[in-house]
């Protein structure tokens, strides 16, 4: 139990540092156990330092920087232990254009091993999806789902 936790923690730690650097194009981030002597109870400290900035508490990060750091951690965990599927509800909402692109690039890599279902309002995210479903309430209060893009159509689309 203890070995298993430590083993996966160290893997996540290594990947998190590199995903963070990819996302922020520099800077550094790492994970630390608050109490390494008590592995099964210890909390986890997260330190994130965007490029050029001083090391600070997570609370001083901006809305978009926090979301991007959280996504980097989530993706690191998924890389170490790929969940079969993952449903993400508007996690792209506070990212600016550049960060959205970086997020989507990494998502594409992970989607070889994990099925992603993304609820979104962002155009670029819609364009990245292979399959697209629309939800409407033509009849007020009644949700209906219809297919907007089937899997093989992705290649035919004029961009």
């Amino acid at each position: 139990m203890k070995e298993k936790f430590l083993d996966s923690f160290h893997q996540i730690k290594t990947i998190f540092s590199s995903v963070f650097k990819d996302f922020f194009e520099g800077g550094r981030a790492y994970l630390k156990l608050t109490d390494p002597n008590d592995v099964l109870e210890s909390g986890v400290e997260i330190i994130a330092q965007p490029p050029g900035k001083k090391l600070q508490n997570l609370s001083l990060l901006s809305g978009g920087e926090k979301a991007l750091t959280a996504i980097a951690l989530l993706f690191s965990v998924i890389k170490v232990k790929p969940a079969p599927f993952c449903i993400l509800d508007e996690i792209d909402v506070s990212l600016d254009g550049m960060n959205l692109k970086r997020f989507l690039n990494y998502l594409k890599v992970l989607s070889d091993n994990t099925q992603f279902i993304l609820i979104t309002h962002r155009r670029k995210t819609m364009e990245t999806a292979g399959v697209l479903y629309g939800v409407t309430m033509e009849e007020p209060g009644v949700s209906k789902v219809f297919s907007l893009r089937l899997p093989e159509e992705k290649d035919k689309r004029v961009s």
Partner: protein
Amino acid sequence: MLLKKIEIYGFKSFPQKVEIELSPGITGIIGPNGCGKSNISDAVRWCLGEQSFKTLRGNQMEDMIFNGTDQRKPISFAEVSLLFDNLDPELNVDYTEVNVTRRLFRSGESDYLLNKVPCRLKEITELFHDTGVGKEAYSLIGQGKIDQILSARPEDRRSIFEEAA
């Protein structure tokens, strides 16, 4: 293991049966405010055994059942099914397809079914143990909840690491 289909009937804003076929890769779900997108994610979380109606944005479990509109009457039960393809057997059952269903009646009675055979929640939780699928797992991130991964207290952050161990 692949999630092939989500079937929803009578859950929240879905009085008519809806089937969502899924394929590998990235699937997008779009639509105007209030049309029912997050209700789909709630349906999956509920089907996998979520017990807290608060996490499902309700005030009581009955809020999960379609409550009616100006034109339609409330429905008496809600049912959500998830169909998994188990070709390279990750799930510890002999079937190549695994169908998990949850049903709730207004009376409060709630059933779980595994390939259409009634079972207890415990069997479903054990089936998915250690696969990364489940209501606690990092595989369901609700609207506005991504920041919670960095949550305030270090001891609260452990759970995502435990899931992955």
